[in-house]
């Protein structure tokens, strides 16, 4: 009953509905722009949430994520260019349907499959998150240290092919996190007498710099001309069609949940896995690749399920499993919210807003998805030079909003250069972001534990939760290392055989 009244209060006494709708709209528009991923779309709006009430800010970011996952399928279907990475699998049959003159139908299937996937993911999120976080009630500083290390071990699965580069990026992220005032003794570190650095470098600057500015810089000078037909209208699938798609949607839901829970899983892997499984279990597998409706439904259901399911490890333990959830974690930390049981106990309105806002966005997606299509088409068709100017101005305006500081703008530009160089040298971004985001928690919990034990490291072995996390983290790194070594040997073995 309390929950009902708190939900009713959120709907009537807070701007949750407009926030959810604005977030969804922004997400669809951003996701529809090729090259602007869901995480970039979220990073662009992140600075503007700084002055918002925490509950509304988190709901807005979650709704942007939901919208971006659908938005990515629009150019995937219409111009064979996925708006987001996770829409890559939708290109295969979505574009084929478009070539057959059935673009409206493909967009309708994508939209409704996205709604099905998001709703399933949301149910999983509501059912699993709080029970999982209960375990975290027994957490001590040692447990938080173990948890932070486990979060950092996620890096091992997100190294983009080189564990060493991923770990180096994480170390640099941790180095950035040490800038500012020391959490225990209060002395300043790496501030060089600059007052703006006393509070450290905010994770949001790192995210915007690495994701958004680096992408803009990479696109500079590219001459790809994209033209979408402006006459396209969405045709929602009939009940008979939805019945036909239920098997592939079910596969998308299951695999999407699994991948959302898996660190490093992400929407693209879920989408491709679902596409393959849907083909395997389809009554008409021969249609896949030639314009199969199931070939659109399965990946779209999966990547939208991931958008909600990926929040389960994030909200329960503070472990981000993808770029987008890392941005959301940045949003939580920016508002002084620490994921885990304390978030449920001390800030239930944040959780309620996130759930309810997501639900509103998912349902509204059907209407807004249809209405906003012409705007997406118009936006994608704008000349790239103007689009770049507007996005750059938006990024800089947003960063200034954080602290009314020109220094922040300079930091973000520097991080843009660092991101570009990292991209050139094939260093992954996410480990660095995880280092920045988790660095403070890992260091302060480690040192607090040692203060409690008088410097005795065996305190970590006395806490079964910490031991469990550390063992799991070690196992995760060993597994990733073994996989990388195996993958590195594969070509040599193949070479020897040939």
């Amino acid at each position, binding site marked *: 009953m309390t929950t009902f009244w708190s939900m009713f209060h959120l709907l009537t006494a807070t701007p949750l509905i407009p926030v959810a709708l604005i977030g969804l709209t922004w997400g669809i528009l951003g996701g529809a722009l090729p090259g602007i991923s869901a995480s970039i779309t979220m990073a662009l709006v992140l600075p*503007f949430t700084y*002055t918002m009430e925490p509950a509304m800010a988190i709901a807005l970011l979650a709704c942007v994520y939901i919208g971006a996952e659908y938005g990515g399928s629009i150019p995937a279907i219409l111009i064979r260019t996925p708006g987001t990475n996770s829409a890559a699998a939708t290109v295969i049959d979505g574009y084929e349907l478009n070539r057959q003159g059935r673009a409206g139908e493909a967009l309708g299937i994508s939209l409704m499959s996205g709604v099905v996937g998001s709703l399933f993911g949301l149910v999983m999120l509501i059912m699993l998150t709080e029970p999982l976080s209960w375990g975290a009630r027994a957490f001590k500083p040692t447990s938080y240290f173990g948890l932070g290390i486990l979060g950092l071990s996620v890096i091992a699965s997100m190294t983009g092919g080189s564990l*060493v*580069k991923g*770990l*180096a990026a994480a*170390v*640099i992220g*941790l*180095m950035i996190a*040490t800038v500012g005032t*020391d959490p*225990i*003794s*209060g*002395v*300043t*570190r*790496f501030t*060089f007498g600059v007052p703006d650095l006393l509070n450290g470098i905010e994770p949001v600057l790192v995210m915007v710099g690495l994701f958004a*500015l680096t992408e*803009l*810089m*990479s696109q*500079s*000078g590219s*001459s790809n001309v994209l033209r979408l037909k402006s006459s396209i209208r969405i045709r929602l699938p009939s009940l008979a069609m939805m019945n036909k798609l239920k098997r592939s949607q079910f596969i998308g839901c299951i695999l999407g949940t699994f991948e959302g829970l898996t660190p490093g899983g992400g929407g693209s892997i879920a989408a491709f896995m679902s596409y393959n499984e849907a083909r395997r279990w389809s009554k008409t597998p021969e249609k896949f690749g030639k314009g199969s409706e199931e070939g659109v439904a399965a990946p779209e259901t999966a990547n939208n399920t991931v958008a909600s399911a990926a929040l389960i490890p994030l909200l329960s333990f503070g472990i981000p499993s993808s770029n987008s959830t890392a941005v959301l974690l940045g949003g939580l930390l920016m508002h002084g919210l620490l994921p885990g049981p304390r978030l449920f106990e001390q800030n239930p309105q944040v959780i309620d807003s996130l759930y309810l806002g997501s639900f509103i966005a998912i349902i509204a997606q059907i209407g807004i998805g249809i209405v906003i299509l012409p705007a997406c088409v118009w936006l994608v068709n704008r*000349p*790239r*030079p*103007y689009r*770049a*100017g*507007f996005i*750059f*101005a*938006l990024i*800089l*305006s947003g960063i*200034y*909003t954080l602290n*009314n500081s*020109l220094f922040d*703008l*300079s930091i973000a*530009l520097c991080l*843009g*250069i660092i991101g*570009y160089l990292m*991209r*050139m*040298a*094939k*260093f992954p971004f996410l480990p660095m972001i995880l280092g920045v985001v988790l660095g403070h928690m890992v*260091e302060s919990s*480690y*040192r607090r534990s*040692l*203060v409690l034990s008088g*410097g005795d490291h065996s305190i970590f072995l006395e806490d079964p939760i910490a031991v469990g996390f550390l063992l799991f983290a070690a196992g995760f790194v060993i597994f990733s290392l073994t996989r990388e070594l195996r993958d590195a040997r594969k070509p040599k073995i193949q070479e020897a055989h040939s």
Partner: protein
Amino acid sequence: MNKDIVSGLVLLVIAGLYHRASGAIADSTLADEVGAAGLPRLLTIALVGLAGILIVRAMLAQKPVAIPVRTKEASGDEVEDDARLPRALGFLLLGAAYIALLPFIGYIAGVALLIGAVALYEGAPRRWTVPIAAIGGALLYWAIFVKLLGVNQPVGSIFHGLFS
């Protein structure tokens, strides 16, 4: 030189600079066993180690002299990113100019100049549409952020009084 070797050397330079800067961390009477300089020391060692692995691995991989094969990956994004570096830095310079000018010309003029300059830099035809889009965009952003959302943006010393 192999890109991984260069990356490794850059990481060593970063580790060196970081180590040097960590020497300036003051001792505190409130310090715990690890101290404020504890983690920075550990991170320096870790980065040096990782840089070493990267360099050694790249050198070992270089040893067998083979005919260089340009993979599809190498001929795609990677090469494009390398070639576009000066262009990308030029793009960022426009941002730096915006930051430098903002306190003087203020938000509206700054954003208008930024949008116009980026559009021209990115190849927009030199027509009347550039200033129209630039001024229109600046006014739109000002209306949304300053007027609608109440976000403070610099007024600019030149235009002070006009928009405050």
